[in-house]
């Protein structure tokens, strides 16, 4: 049975670097994926993932253990990503927030198109490199904070409770941001799939 995070953290605190290696290997792929989803650049994502692990190690004494290690790790990862985006000035939608009180037009999302085109087997479509790029493009249209929630939910499968803890926001805000982020991604992907279908004359299924 794998050793739990907290035990590994305690070992790291007592000077066991190999325990930290285990923690890094446990989360490296997902931390990288979140960073890649945020930044779109492989090299940058790798650098951010490394920086996040180094930072977590250096501040391990500040980790109280009242929250999960991984929520703390992802919080640091997301914060580094946001810093990088701001330094680069690439965060065009930095201060844009979806307002859940504002009525949004769901018809723009072309309901059901994505589900019917991708069918029940997304693997077939995911193999296409262009689609992966389109997902990155779709994510770019989503404000950074909403993007972080969407990525942590989809990649790590975090619960709303953990998302709220990781990003230090109320659970209601998590629900609202996640819904709007999904709607946006759905819209962009649908547009891409419609265009692709028109070009090739066939569906992706």
């Amino acid at each position: 049975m794998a050793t739990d995070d907290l035990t590994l953290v305690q070992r790291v605190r007592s000077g066991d670097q190999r325990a930290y290696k285990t923690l890094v290997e446990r989360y490296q792929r997902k931390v990288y994926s979140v960073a890649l989803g945020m930044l779109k650049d492989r090299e940058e994502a790798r650098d951010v993932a490394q920086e996040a692990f180094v930072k977590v190690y250096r501040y391990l004494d500040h980790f109280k253990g009242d929250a999960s290690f991984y929520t703390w790790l992802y919080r640091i990862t997301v914060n580094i990503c946001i810093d990088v985006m701001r330094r680069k000035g690439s965060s065009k939608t930095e201060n844009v927030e979806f307002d859940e009180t504002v009525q949004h037009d769901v018809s723009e999302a072309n309901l059901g198109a994505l589900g019917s085109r991708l069918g029940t087997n997304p693997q077939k479509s995911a193999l296409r490199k262009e689609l992966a790029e389109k997902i990155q493009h779709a994510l770019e249209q989503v404000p950074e904070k909403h993007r972080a929630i969407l990525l942590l939910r989809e990649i790590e499968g975090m619960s709303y409770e953990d998302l709220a803890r990781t990003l230090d926001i109320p659970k209601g805000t998590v629900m609202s941001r996640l819904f709007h982020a999904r709607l946006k991604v759905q819209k962009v992907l649908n547009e891409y799939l419609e265009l692709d279908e028109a070009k090739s004359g066939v569906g992706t299924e």
Partner: protein
Amino acid sequence: MSNQDNPARKKFEPMLSPFVDGELTPEERQQVEQHLAANKESAMQVADFRAASGLMRLTFEQQADAEDWKDFSNEVLAKLTPDKPPLFERLKASLAEMFTYQRGAFVGAMVTAALLVTVGSMAFLLGSSQSTGYANEQLKLQTVKVDQGAHVAPVVMETETGDAIIWMVNDSGAEPDAAKNDEKKKNDEELDPDPDAPSKKAGDL
């Protein structure tokens, strides 16, 4: 049809994303399922959310697979510069690390070391108690013979353990000439008997 035209859809729409994520209470879930059965638009939106979710997860998994993770954790560890703890702490950490990750080898080494120490101690003790030279051999006293006329004197010594060693010393340095003179005198009497003395044998004849 927008949400404004359908109050039921407007009511349930915020619950669709938590529904996909399994974040609703059983009662809420049941209500949404009933709504989905009656509302095709909401059902299609749920299908879209699920399709996009699966697609994103798979895409990021594939992108993480494309990365080389062989040296990532070592690169992270190389960047860590912890404060050097005292020697005792480092030894303690090393032993704890060995005990955690190489328990079998560690216990084996300790047992071997203990055996070596025991065998070494025994060899040392036996070696230090044995004398060198002829006394190294254990001698068993059979008989004690003393030449007649020998001038002997016992020398008694006691060992640390209380055993007694008795040496019979031939004190030949004090009387060698006297002994020789006695013997010579005896021989002379046998070869050249006193002419004045009556022969015992002749008298007898």
